[in-house]
């Protein structure tokens, strides 16, 4: 008798996925070793990668990608957890607060980026105007090479912290109330409970937030492109924006080498990390 679960159900999805995702991924390993114009390719060995790690602009992109990924993901974990504890605690207007923190997640990244570009204008922008009224001389958020990347990272956190918060809330809500009641009976303080109950038992949520925001942060392109286009100069370039710039300049091989570098960064960080984090599951 034939199975009611035929394998050909995989076929349509497999076809689309293979042609537009698997094939390009494998092709990228080959084309990254070539000088390529999309029509013609010449095998040149590892030259693209040598260029990638010698050209200061490209090395900067590599370093910035790591900084951006770690900063955004770290801040999302800390702020998301803080907000989640706040929003599951004794506080009024929870529904409003959750909505207002979460809504930016759904808004167009380009729209958010352009809005904050205006808000961060060094002379006329609202942020520096507001800082000026309390006597602080705000920096050129996006025009100063020392701050540009971090400013974009902060906007990324502003936009994405709502998702981290929701994931933490789901994790905290799933902790049985009995633990808190027992701890309270034993005279535990709020900090004790956070440290010894919430933190360890919300661990799956923490793992999810770390992994999701690292994957997103390392691959991030649109916000950076909308706000600085990698500038001033190339000081806020990341690998994803280098890929686009090299593609536009016609260096398809170098662009694809950038893709392979990004692939290696993401898998080399995310896979071991998720294995490590998932292994240290708490014993109940």
């Amino acid at each position, binding site marked *: 008798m034939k199975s*009611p*679960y035929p*394998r050909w*159900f*995989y076929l349509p*999805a*497999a076809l*689309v*996925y293979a*042609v*537009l995702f698997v094939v*390009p*991924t494998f*092709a990228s390993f080959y*084309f990254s070793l070539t000088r390529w114009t*999309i029509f013609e390719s010449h095998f040149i060995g590892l030259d693209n990668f040598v260029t990638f790690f010698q050209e200061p602009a490209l090395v900067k992109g590599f370093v910035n990608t790591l900084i951006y990924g770690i900063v955004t993901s770290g801040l999302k974990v800390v702020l998301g957890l803080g907000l989640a504890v*706040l929003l599951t*605690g004794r*506080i*009024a*207007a929870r529904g*409003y607060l959750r*909505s*207002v*923190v979460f*809504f930016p997640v*759904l*808004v*167009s*990244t*380009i*729209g958010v980026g*352009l*809005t904050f570009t205006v*808000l961060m204008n060094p002379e*006329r*922008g*609202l942020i520096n*105007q507001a800082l000026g009224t309390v006597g602080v001389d705000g920096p050129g958020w996006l025009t100063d090479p020392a701050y540009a990347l971090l400013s974009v990272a902060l906007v990324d956190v502003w936009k994405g912290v709502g998702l981290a918060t929701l*994931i933490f809330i*789901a*994790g905290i809500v*799933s902790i049985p109330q009995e633990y808190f*009641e027992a701890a309270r009976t034993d005279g535990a303080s709020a900090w004790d409970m956070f440290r010894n109950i919430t933190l360890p038992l919300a661990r*799956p949520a923490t793992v*999810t937030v770390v992994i999701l925001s690292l*994957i997103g942060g*390392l*691959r991030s*392109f*649109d916000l950076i492109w909308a706000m600085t286009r990698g500038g001033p100069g190339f000081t806020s370039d990341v690998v994803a924006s280098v890929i686009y710039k090299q*593609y536009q300049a016609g260096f*398809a091989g170098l*662009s694809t080498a950038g*893709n*392979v570098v*990004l*692939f290696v960064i*993401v898998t080399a960080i*995310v896979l071991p990390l998720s294995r490590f984090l998932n292994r240290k599951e708490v014993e109940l």
Partner: protein
Amino acid sequence: MNGRRNWVLSIVAIVVSAVVFLVPFAFIVLMAGKDRAQASLLDFSWPHQLQFVRNFIDVVEARDYMLIIAYINSTVLTVASVAGMVVLAAMVAFVLQRRPGRWGGFINFLVLAGLIVPPAVVPTIWVLKGTGTFGTMPGLILVEIAFGLSFCVLLFRAFIATIPRELDEAAVIDGAGPLRLFFRVIFPLLRSVIITAVVVQSVTVFNDFVNPLYFLPGDPTVQLTLYNFAGQYTSEYNLLFMNILLITVPPLVMFLFFNRRIVAGMTAGAIKG
């Protein structure tokens, strides 16, 4: 125990959240209603004369109604790709959950790879060119489907695990073939999780900037109009912000109607890693 509320903390939280999260949106709305001269001051102020309607008309008419074309393109893209990925992913998830077999491990690996691996951009263009679909809407739709499948498969597989197998058996005994079993029995039962997937993925595809930028040059989607206007409107911030306001409306509507669904979809997997 949760009865006593901490009012001081509540008020601080409400004020801070308003400053941090509402002011930028208020800024967008105010800017969208200003005249050109006042908008170029970039300050947070009430418009001297409200001209929402005029700015709206100006933005719609700009560049031969580019925004209208972009809205049509984005709608076609979103509807077609989300419909495609939901149906294809549900078929995969169904067989994958019911009959993991020899292929199960490999397919799970592919699904996870789809979430982690950054798409190889230029080789994708190369494939699209090779199949004659580069720069065409069908090509971009298929790309969006390929990139969205993984999320949908994970969401559906978890839900299908909760549908009892007895239901399948009953349908088979009644003479249903695989197609009938899936489309008439299982698919309708997925309704709630399908709504979640549709809402989350619609917002994702509608807001997508990178894929249209690479794979559909020349034909604008709404995110690209914004990007193009940003270059053109360096002196017309009122129109730029009217445009931002207009493309924020669809996600806002989704949020107002499907808040719970979106939250359910996006936090799926938070409890069991």
